[in-house]
């Protein structure tokens, strides 16, 4: 390869790198800008949908555990993993700064998230959870999610 060809290759590679770095920078700025904007109904709905699914999973876990279709060890392990997921969703919800019209919805959903966390603490315990209350919680979170979707 001649010297001029090699220089051209190097220049070409340099510009490719510049373009790549530029695109990455733009994406980072766009993500930061989006995170600074007040949350709309969609952004509020996403963690609520996750909490709704987690409540439904807790309900199923408790039901299968009570029917001895899953072992107590499995219930403990899965509840541990659900707690991690729940904490993540609750944190995501709490960190949102919604438009004023959604502030009450965020507050209510956070109360539901706290209740779900409390249930998760008890699922692997000797008394288990109150399935009826989890069912009501799951239905309520589902309603909140659907309201924000519509």
């Amino acid at each position: 390869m001649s010297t001029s060809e090699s220089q051209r290759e190097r220049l070409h590679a340099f510009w490719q790198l510049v373009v790549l770095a530029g695109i990455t920078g733009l994406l980072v700025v766009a993500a930061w800008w989006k995170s600074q904007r007040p949350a709309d109904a969609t952004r509020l709905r996403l963690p609520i949908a996750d909490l709704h699914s987690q409540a439904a999973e807790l309900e199923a876990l408790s039901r299968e555990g009570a029917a001895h279709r899953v072992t107590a060890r499995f219930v403990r392990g899965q509840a541990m993993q659900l707690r991690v997921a729940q904490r993540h969703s609750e944190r995501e919800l709490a960190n949102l700064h919604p438009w004023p019209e959604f502030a009450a919805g965020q507050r209510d959903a956070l109360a539901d998230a706290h209740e779900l966390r409390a249930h998760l603490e008890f699922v692997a315990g000797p008394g288990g959870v109150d399935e009826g209350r989890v069912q009501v919680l799951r239905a309520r979170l589902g309603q909140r999610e659907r309201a924000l979707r519509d």
Partner: protein
Amino acid sequence: MKFGEIFLGVLTAMGGFVEIGELTFTLNAGQQFDWALLWVVPLGTVGIMVYCEMAGRVAAVRGRPVFALVRERTGFNSALLTLLASLAVNLLTCAAEIGGVALLLQLLLGSPYRLLILVTFAMLVLVVWFVSFKWIERIFGLGGLLLIVFLVAAVYFGPDWTHVAQGLLPHVPRDAGARETLLYFFYAVALLSSIMLPYETYFYASGGIEDEWKPADVGLNRFVVLVGFALGGLLSASLVGVGTEYFAPNEIQPQSPGAAALGIAHVFGPIGLLLALGGMFFAFGGAAIETALSSAYNLAQFAGWPWGKHLRRRHAGRFTLSWLATFALAAVVALSGVNPISIVEYSIVFSVVILPFTYFPVLAVASDRTIMGKHANGPLANALGWFYLVLITGAGIAALPLLFLTHGGRG
């Protein structure tokens, strides 16, 4: 060729078909859209059959693995970009699989997650270090067959077969709004990508060379791909079924291996639970090994280093170091505490972007009569190859906008 070897090849291809990303996407596709996305499973399965068969044939006839072809056919710059992208995708996928195995071990042992990531890392390194290539394939492929319990469960749930048949025809659900339609297409692209993951082709072709395939093995290659992957596709279809029949009515979006196993426990109790967890353990463990080895294969084939598990380690030092480094980096990513399912969702969407760059060189060489002689593609293989190349290019272009518009597939 012995019947037993062919039989084992088919079973390992079937058992190694599903990994954590495919499991999650197919279950969630069923949960969100019932059977309406079922058509993507046969579409993707035929696609991976077409390209693995071609890559395996080139490996058998010419002894050339995929990444040597990528560099030869697309030039240094483009091949380097494909290499870096494939290494990144393999690393993320490997991290997700390691995280998935650690989550499964946590269900069995109850130990802290991060400790179990280290245990998984050590276990996988020891397996690849001490076990031969053939036995790695067999242990993890055959162990993955325990996932057949999902197939039995899907039938046991008693699906409406008319709905199942309707799902084989591409259609957006009738009452879907703009949000659901975008999500539907996101899932279609992600499912296609999860079935046609590029590392499967790298690993399959390199594995053919590890197994010392010769031109006489072209028939074996075709049979294993057609039958083994078809059965693997059936397994994927059953995951859509379990998503539809169990997770949708229970309003659960399964985001962990344990959640996925709940549907099976509901039908078969603790035995079913154990089979599902065991199947996932081998499937995810096998996929972690395949992605780590694929990274080492790609790097070595691109750079022209000696490679292969069949070589003595001191003769393939850089190859060995590459798979060790992939495991180590993947373990670090998993240790960061990011949910493995979140990692794999992104790695699958980014995979589809590099698929055309991986598959075009395979198609170009497999159809070249001057290179492949009488083993070159026939009209059907060429037509299918071009059809899928156009399809995955379209999917690759749509993938990132869909990921953005659906908030990372969350709706």
